[in-house]
């Protein structure tokens, strides 16, 4: 009697677990569909050739790569190059600056350290967009706007990037300070400590910083739009493609937008998936450290 009831309970446990897991599978499949549908749609529509405007169906009636071919007769290649150059330069310079800043704040104890960190915290509370007006006029005086927006944009992205030191400082904080001390006792200067001890140990955070710095310019819209100021030669992909979806252009360029979007998204996504591990480490570490 007691044996059967315990069996029943046992079966019940197993059954309820199976039920719960089934429900979760259903949920996960539903989520995956919801998350992927827009991207599947955009890919499908980029191959649609029977019309260039937005339609109420997904599967093209006539397939072709006309949209991709047409991209090359627009400013799209120029935008693409602009964005790529910006992204590469930003990734390089921003990484150097962020690492300098975060390593210093993690390792050195100088008088102005705390005030400096508080000051940057307060600075960060001002909406960055506010600086745009003046930065635009200054860059314009330097000749770095409109057609020459790319160097101007790099300058804007890189210059203030020292304020985004939190995540990598959190990482440096986890490297024991006694390693620095041991190296200094062993006869290393501070610069040698950084080069020979800390940097070789910081591969994950260096890759994370490069990756995020590289991805930033692909999606930035506000500054890029302000600084290119309507000149197609200076736009990045975000600004250029945005203009194709304004009411007066959408009927002409909707499918081409999709094709452009695919060309932008695919390399960035591949790179990201390839380096996913480092990104995940950085994000979780950053959130835990606040």
């Amino acid at each position, binding site marked *: 009697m007691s044996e059967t009831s315990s069996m029943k309970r046992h079966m019940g446990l197993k059954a309820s677990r199976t039920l719960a897991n089934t429900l979760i599978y259903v949920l996960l499949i539903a989520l*995956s569909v919801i998350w992927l549908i827009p991207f599947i749609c955009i890919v499908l529509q980029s191959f649609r050739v029977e019309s260039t405007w937005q*339609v109420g169906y997904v599967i093209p009636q006539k397939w072709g790569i006309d949209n991709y071919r047409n991209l090359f007769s627009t400013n799209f290649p120029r935008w693409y190059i602009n964005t790529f150059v910006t992204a590469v330069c930003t990734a390089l310079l921003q990484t150097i600056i962020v690492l300098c800043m975060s390593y210093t704040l993690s390792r050195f104890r100088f008088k102005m350290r705390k005030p400096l960190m508080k000051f940057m915290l307060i600075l960060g509370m001002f909406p960055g967009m506010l600086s745009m007006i003046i930065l635009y006029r200054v860059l314009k005086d330097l000749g770095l706007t409109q057609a020459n927006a790319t160097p101007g944009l790099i300058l804007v992205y890189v210059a203030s990037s020292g304020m985004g030191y939190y995540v990598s400082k959190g990482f440096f904080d986890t490297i024991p300070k006694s390693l620095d001390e041991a190296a200094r006792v062993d006869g290393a200067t501070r610069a*040698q400590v950084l080069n020979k001890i800390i940097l070789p140990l910081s591969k994950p955070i260096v890759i994370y910083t490069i990756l995020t710095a590289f*991805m930033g310019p692909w999606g930035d*819209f506000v500054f890029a739009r302000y600084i290119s100021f309507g000149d197609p030669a200076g736009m990045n992909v*975000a600004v250029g493609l945005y203009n194709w979806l304004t009411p007066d252009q959408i009927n002409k360029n909707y499918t081409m937008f999709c094709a452009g979007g695919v060309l932008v998204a695919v390399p960035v996504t591949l790179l990201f*998936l390839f380096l996913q591990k480092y990104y995940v480490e950085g994000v979780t570490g950053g959130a835990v450290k606040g």
Partner: protein
Amino acid sequence: MAQLSDLEYLKLSKGRKIGYKLGRFFAGIPKAFANLGLKIWDVLKKGASAVGREVKDIITSFIQGDWKTKVSYLVMGFGCLARGQILRGLLFLLFEIVFIGYMVLSGGYWLSMMPSLGKVGPTEEYNEIYDVFVTKYNDNSFQILLYSVLTIFFIIAFIYTWRVNIRQSRMAEKILATGKRLKSGKEDLHSLTDESFHKTLLALPLTGIIIFTVLPIIFMILVAFTNYDGSHDGYISNLFHWVGMDNFNTLFSWKSANGTQSYAATFGEILSWTLMWAFFATFSNYFLGMFVAMAINKKGIKVKKLWRTILVMTIAIPQFISLLYVSKMFAKDGILNGFLLSMGWITKALPFWEDPIWARVTVIMINIWIGIPYLMLIATGILMNIPADLYESARIDGANPWQQYTRITLPYMLFITGPYLLTSFTGNMNNFNVIYLLTGGAPLNPAASSAAGNVGYTDLLITWLFKITTGADSKYYLASVVGILVFVVVALISLIVYNVLPSIKNEEDFQ
């Protein structure tokens, strides 16, 4: 609310415990402000006494210093040069020459123009040869303001360097008096890779921040006290001038001119939606992201990595593509409505972007779509760090899954991610991309728009700010005022959370 002792607190009923904590939270707010006031006062006092000390030291150095130090008061770097520290001395001297040259050539002019921001605006001049009136551009208010701020920066830097020059001369004098040797130029350079390595590392990042963040912010704060706008751009159309507190008075005034809504009402409307948006955007993502993470993490779920990768992939796709595309999907003639219509489930297109309520709900929903993968990642990382024995012991104590979630998972997550929640809240308040790319602020709010800009129902303060700074009648001064207010709101929220939260958090300390 009076503080209870631990034992008294434990005797309270569950409801009363919550009431007590809430009471303590709100009672703590004035104290937080008082503390802030005290801190600021303290910083000011310390600053004043530091300046006092410096001044005293400058004077005593002059009285007690030898003639080399005394000459340094006039000729920077002389003390170093005279004592053989050639490199330092030359740098000081060079700085002084550059500074004086700059002040004579242009700095003085900019400073003298600062109070007026320009005297002569553009004038029409008759050109006899071509017999036409030609516009002649004269003073440039924008440049005057910008360069006078720069000049003030430069003067501060000069005073600081002058002070350092005196201190070094005096120190060198003292070191020589004890019979020790001074550092050579080579050693100075070498120290930049060792004990002063932080100066080397910080030089570039800080210069960037000062020029590209601090300077613009100070400039824009100053703009809030001028009438800089499209029709007073300072050069081509008209000069702009100082107007004192007028812009703040305008924004805080409930009075409205013929039929338009007052600025204060418009601002209030946008602010309340901004806060509402930030709240929903933050917490919906937070809880749903945690939920998805837990679902994937659950024992017995296979191919965990695949599910995660599918979600994470969407982080990689640049937001402007996904947001713009999704925005069009939800449009009146978009795929979604087209699909629903063709299936016959609806007879009329759903007003996703046309109806205020629909639009607000839709942006929050799409933001969940955007935000869940990110939160899922964070939550996964933290969930895996929760010690398994906590759950084992809870299960032995008889906790069911829901109790395990509310008693272990949730408090742990909240404790660890408290600061993240705060930054994510303030980040959402300024989440320009999502709103601007999805709706551009639409649908239009006619009443609010009558005040300024094309205010829509989904406009945040930050998109409103963007709208007033673009277009023909850009009201830069208004944008500055709004920007300052955004800062104030963000700072207030951060202050309250940072100062009051720890007292509540400590009790569930997991560390």
